[in-house]
């Protein structure tokens, strides 16, 4: 076995590390579960829906079924039965959400009906829904359909809609302008395509799509309005299968809702999982550093390894790397599971940037505390002194680090509304790995403070992405390099 794999195996099989990782993952999952199961603002349907179109080709009809969730995102593995003339044709939606079937078709001059039955499993229970789809006479494809009430994953509205275009031979959509305008529901004169065309508030152009979602960029002030949309191609309103006529076009009332947005989810994770990781990751780092390196060094066990063909630098690096694997695993696994639980409840993952920021934050905290214990492992010579130093590092630089700035600034009589207060708070954040999560939070939320938050422009106080990332790298690198040099140059 290569020594580095042994080191990793040794650390991952250490009782302390196992207990800590299980605790971190378990508590993070529980908090995510608690957030998901008790959050009351949830109103985004996470049950799959399906919309259907068709196109004719010779004596065959191709039924195009698209399954989607409340955000308009595709839903896979939905079983769809199309029943025509008592014969059932089945398909299952793919990753793209489509379940298409082609079968023989005899059009009539009155149009034809096809029964669509789609089913899926939720919590091991099969749920199905049936509706009748009408294929009009003398129409070769269903063209454009607009499905309103699609929830916007990035803000608090469901002013979005989903557009499904099924052309002949399943070609993508031509260039279509979606004219979106607020209307007064009680004023019939506004229920006309001409009104929409004369008062366009949004004009969004799309082409080449089979399915797409459109979210008009409304502001909070617009929330009291109802909106209508007309789809226009080359100046003419497109007839959709549901349209009443060119005067009206397609009118959809795009309503408001208050779903959990990405930012709200991030807030949930920040107040839950963040607290768990902020407390437990430094404990894991500090004590695994003590148990797997410092203790071996102070008791002399490490000499049984140092006498092998390995350099002092190689030994400290491999131990640091192996312990880092445990810390990084704990952070990533706990976040990944929390994200999956959140997805289960909200049908929405955390944003990639938030996920990465979060992981980076606690990896920095963990590795920085680990490196600090490595430094102390070379500065003290007894096991007891090292354990004391490790506990002190954790207590002062993590546990009480959010309180220390408040106490110091209060003692100095610095007003919490002054610039000096913010500057000093930021300085404290930079001064310990225990403050790193607050630093990242300040960057993300434009606010600073633990007990009460002050809205600030973080860049004005030296909190920029570049500086924060640099600080993180330095918090890992500097203590580790000090420990490395002590290991190489001192007995």
């Amino acid at each position: 076995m290569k020594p580095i794999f042994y080191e990793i195996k040794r650390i991952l099989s250490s009782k302390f590390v196992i207990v800590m990782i299980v605790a971190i993952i378990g508590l993070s999952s529980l908090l995510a579960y608690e957030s998901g199961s008790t959050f009351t603002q949830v109103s985004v349907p996470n049950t799959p829906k399906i919309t259907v179109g068709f196109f004719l080709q010779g004596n065959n009809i191709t039924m195009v079924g698209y399954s989607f969730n409340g955000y308009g995102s595709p839903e896979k593995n939905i079983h769809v039965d199309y029943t025509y003339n008592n014969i059932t044709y089945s398909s299952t939606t793919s990753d793209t959400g489509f379940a298409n079937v082609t079968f023989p078709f005899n059009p009539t001059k009155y149009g034809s009906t096809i029964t669509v039955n789609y089913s899926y499993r939720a919590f091991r229970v099969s749920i199905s829904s049936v509706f009748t789809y009408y294929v009009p006479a003398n129409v070769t494809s269903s063209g454009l359909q607009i499905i309103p009430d699609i929830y916007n994953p990035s803000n608090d509205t469901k002013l979005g809609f989903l557009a499904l275009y099924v052309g002949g031979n399943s070609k993508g959509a031509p260039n279509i302008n979606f004219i979106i305008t607020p209307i007064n529901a009680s004023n019939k004169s506004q229920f006309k395509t001409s009104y929409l065309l004369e008062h366009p508030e949004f004009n969004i152009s799309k082409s080449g799509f089979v399915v797409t979602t459109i979210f008009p960029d409304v502001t909070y002030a617009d929330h009291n309005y109802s909106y209508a949309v007309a789809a226009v191609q080359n100046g003419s309103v497109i007839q959709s299968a549901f349209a009443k006529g060119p005067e009206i076009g397609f009118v959809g009332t795009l309503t408001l809702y208050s779903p959990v947005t990405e930012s709200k989810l991030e807030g949930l994770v920040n107040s839950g999982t963040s607290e768990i990781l902020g407390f437990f990751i430094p404990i894991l780092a500090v004590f695994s550093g003590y148990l797997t390196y410092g203790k071996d060094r102070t008791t002399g066990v490490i000499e049984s390894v140092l006498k092998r063909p390995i350099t002092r630098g190689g030994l400290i690096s491999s131990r640091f790397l192996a312990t880092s694997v445990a810390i990084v695993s704990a952070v990533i696994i706990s976040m990944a599971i929390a994200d999956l639980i959140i997805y289960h409840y909200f049908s929405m993952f955390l944003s990639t940037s938030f996920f990465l920021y979060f992981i980076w934050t606690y990896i920095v905290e963990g590795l920085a505390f680990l490196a600090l214990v490595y430094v102390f492992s070379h500065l003290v010579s007894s096991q007891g002194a090292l354990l004391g130093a490790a506990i002190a590092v954790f207590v002062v630089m993590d546990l009480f680090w959010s309180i220390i700035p408040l106490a110091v600034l209060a003692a100095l009589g610095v007003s919490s509304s002054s610039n000096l207060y913010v500057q000093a708070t930021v300085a404290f954040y930079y001064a310990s790995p225990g403050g790193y999560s607050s630093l990242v939070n300040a960057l993300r939320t434009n606010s600073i403070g633990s007990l009460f938050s002050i809205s600030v422009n973080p860049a004005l106080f030296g909190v920029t992405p570049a500086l924060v990332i640099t600080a993180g790298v330095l918090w890992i690198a500097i203590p580790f390099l000090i420990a490395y040099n002590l290991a190489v140059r001192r007995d």
Partner: protein
Amino acid sequence: MITIDSVTKVYSSKSPPAVENLSLEMKNGEILGLVGLNGAGKTTTIRMSSGIILPTSGSISVDGHDVVKEKVEAAKSIGWIPEFPNFEPNAKPLFLMRYYAGFYGLNKEETEDRIERLLDMVGLKSHLNKKLRNYSQGMKKRFAIAESLIGDPQNVLFDETLNGLDPEGVLFVRNLMLEMRKNGKAVLLSSHILSEVEDVADRVAIINRGKLVKLLTRGELRTLGRIVVHISLANPDEGVRGLLKEFGDVQKERDEIVVTDLTIGQEKIPDIAAALVRGGYRIMRFDPVGESLEEYFFGVIGGKR
């Protein structure tokens, strides 16, 4: 071969060097004894040679590789059995042996063969399921011997290894060293049991307060025997010291008088007995013997037995 060249080790500026300007050579096919009092610098010398601690000045090379600058290459050729072996207490011997073997680039088959052979050799094959924390000190020493030899080193350093071993263990280590010598390996034995060193060593280095005091060759060891006279009297008194003073240095040890550094030739030794009889002393024992390494050692370092 290990070459120690003008090595000094200072642990603290407040205390004298643990090792000072020490030069020594461990040759292949030879057992070098390293003797000295506690704190003389034996273990420090060995730990520096093993790359565990760094010399303050001077250099140590192992088979031509500097132990500091070329640590990896040097360590491949060194096996160090410490006085107090210290292992990860919760590890089991096989697991740890495999880990150690990983540093020497052995393939799986070589690793398993060597581990089995070494653990069998040191008599631990029936104790493989125990964690090392449950091993006795003697078992730990046996394990230390096995793990130190996992890389088949050319140079083996035994630091007070005989301490804490049962008689069977002492015999085993002694035979192991002789076998290693026979196989052309360089062996260093540091021990307080000077008679053991005397029995097996080809050369003996005596160090005191970090300095090499004397390096005895095998030939010198054989002819070490300067005569000392052990005398027991039935009626000793204070006057006997004055009477014997003209024959050499007189030391009194419990009920025995030892005359060393004789000022007379070997053939004149009976004159000492005659003088005692003339002085009215009744002689219980009169034993002229060659000086042991122990006696020589204490003579050289200027201490007392």
